[in-house]
């Protein structure tokens, strides 16, 4: 009977290349941050309003279904549609679903994205601050960089974590919603008209992931104690929105200045939404309906942004790039210090 040698044994396996190191950091980061109760409650809360949208898409599917076309006026689905889109647009849609389907889809998806921005702020405020500051205060960077890992892997991994949770609150619900709307749509031909929605929505979510994720990482890498960071981050969003509102009120609403209202650029929310608005092409889709229904035109006025969306996108991307650069530099210096 051979007694197994209890002491230290060599490992026969072979170490893999450096390819997916960032994925490992991201995967473990998500697992670790997933343990926080607050975060799970937030994500759950973000998925709840989905019920209403599902109902709305169910109603749309039913209403445009050929057999029931005749007796549609008095059904609850049509009532819901009218409540949501106003009488004129609802009638037009029922009569000629093909041409109005993209409008309805784009608007509904935009509304959903509009409501999730608050969740994005809260989720990043909960997940973001601890990601790097905890590593800094625990001197963990010495451990990370004593292993075959570059700063790029580390930063990409951490960005992956915060992007995952932003996605869980935006891309996740959007994809689920799109899947259900496909199920409820009566025919394949309807599907072809709305195929544009998902990739564009996903693009908008990607911009949100990077635009909101990177700055919170930069904040997280600046300090060792993340206690105030969550509030500071949320404060930044709210204050930028308040400042933008005050500016637009003072200058364009009450004051009489001419020219396009550029104040939207000051607000973080508005930048993200302007990009989403453009990605889903809500404006072009809503234009034909605006002529018909008063409500559609009011939406146009309320949700569209006078400033050019490209400025918003550029502002977000530059901000993200700057943030990631700050993170890389801080992490690099801390790696040497951390190992001190």
């Amino acid at each position, binding site marked *: 009977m051979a007694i197994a040698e209890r002491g230290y044994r*060599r*490992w026969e396996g072979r170490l893999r290349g450096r390819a997916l190191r960032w994925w490992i950091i991201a995967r473990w980061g998500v697992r670790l941050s997933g343990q926080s109760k607050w975060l799970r409650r937030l994500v759950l809360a973000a998925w709840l309003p989905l019920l209403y949208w599902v109902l709305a898409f169910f109603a749309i599917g039913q209403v445009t279904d050929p057999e029931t076309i005749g007796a549609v006026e008095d059904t609850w689905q049509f009532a819901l549609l009218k409540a949501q889109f106003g009488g004129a647009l609802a009638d037009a849609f029922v009569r000629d679903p093909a041409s109005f389907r993209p409008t309805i889809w784009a608007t509904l998806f935009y509304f959903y994205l509009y409501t999730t921005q608050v969740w994005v702020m809260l989720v990043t405020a909960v997940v973001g601050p601890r990601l790097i500051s905890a590593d800094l205060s625990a001197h963990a960077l*010495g451990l990370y960089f004593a292993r075959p890992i570059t700063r790029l892997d580390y930063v990409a991994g951490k960005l992956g974590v915060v992007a995952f949770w932003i996605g869980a609150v935006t891309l996740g619900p959007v994809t689920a919603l799109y899947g259900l709307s496909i199920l409820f749509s009566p025919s394949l031909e309807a599907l072809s008209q709305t195929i544009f929605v998902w990739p564009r929505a996903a693009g908008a979510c990607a911009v949100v992931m990077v635009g909101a994720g990177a700055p919170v990482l930069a904040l997280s890498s600046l300090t060792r104690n993340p206690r105030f960071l969550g509030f500071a981050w949320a404060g930044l969003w709210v204050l930028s929105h308040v400042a933008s509102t005050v500016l637009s009120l003072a200058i364009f609403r009450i004051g009489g200045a001419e020219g396009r209202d550029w104040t939207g650029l000051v607000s973080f929310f508005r930048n993200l939404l302007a990009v989403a608005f453009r990605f889903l092409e809500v404006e072009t889709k809503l234009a034909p309906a605006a002529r018909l229904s008063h409500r559609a035109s009011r939406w146009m006025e309320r949700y569209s942004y006078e400033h050019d969306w490209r400025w918003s996108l550029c502002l977000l991307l530059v901000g993200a790039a700057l943030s990631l650069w700050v993170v890389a530099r801080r992490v690099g210096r801390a790696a040497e210090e951390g190992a001190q």
Partner: protein
Amino acid sequence: MTPLIELSGLTKDFGAFRALDGLDARLPRGSVGLLGPNGAGKSTLVKCLLGLLRPSAGRARLLGEDVARRPLALRRRVGYLPEVDCHLPGLSAVEFVAYAGELSGMPPRDAMTRAHEMLDLVGLADERYRPVHAASTGTRQRVKFAQAIVHDPEVVFLDEPTNGLDPRGREQMLALVAGLARAGVSVVYSSHLLADVERVCSEVLILREGRIIAAGPLEELRARTGAGWELRTRGDEEALRRELRARGIDYAALGPGRGVVRPARSSAALDEPVPSAPEPVPAAGNPDAPAVADPRSAAREDAASPVDRAAASESTGLPAGEGPQGEGGAPTADGDEATTRDVPSPPDAPSGGGALPGDAGVRSGESARPGPDGNSAGGEAFSAQAVATVPRRVFAAAAAAGCEVRRFVPLRSSLEDVFVAAVRAQEER
């Protein structure tokens, strides 16, 4: 076999402060000791070898590869136990080690099974499932050790691994390190504790203020210091001294019931003037409170009035190396992080007895001090034959004097004396 570490003119500056000043050394594979007081540049050297710090000048090669050129490939074959207290936040011990394994390139499943194996090795039972940041110092130190070896590195850098461990923890850590060396993993053991390095390393590199003051195999460095025995007795000391002198053995008393025995030397060198004695036994207050400079010896003292062993070694010129951990000697149980002989920072040690004011009056006269050139000269004067019969004569004398012999240990030079001699040699250069 390519050497483990080759340093050529390695220099590292932090602004004006020069942490490493032109290091040149070649160290073979196996367990290498990096020794020096806190702030001597040990950690900086380790970080340069790991590629965490870029050297300001000169080159360092690890396992035959230049550290600055391809650090990533090199780091896959290296494990690191940092000195600073660090952990990966929020993870339990087993997650911590598995994650570390994956970061080094192990597939997830292998990393998890290997993590459990490593945690068994370091002796973590159910604490492995609790978060590391809430664990005790001992547990955290063991987890740090496990994460350093989970990916089966060829060389492991251990920076003060026994920091903050209680006696039992220290013993286990040293046994683990020895286990590593047995399994063929090269170990670079950086510490300011001499006894740890003595027990684990075959090669030693002694650093002081960024410069190498001694390097080479441990045995060679220690050969330079002479022989002698520490004797602890209880009973009539005067009778014992007379019996010993009658048998040609010189007894240098260090305190009541404690002394150093050496074969008596005929030459006059024996009775040179005695330098001022070790620190004072405090007059008022607590008369018994020993003014002990060297922590290690205190543990050996009788309660009566233990006198400082280090001071004794300086004044008697004899290597007062403790040596209980000599060949086969079981490590005394009370070794905790400060117990073992620590490396005195040179400004104090080499100046020897002189720096210590006041007098003890206990040993004036008996102890001899072979010249100022340090203890190495005193050793070789004895012939091998004279040395061999000392033990029997000592026991015979003790029997005749009717004294108890509570402790009789050969005085083998400890690294402190090697350090002291090296520093003195360096200052002369």
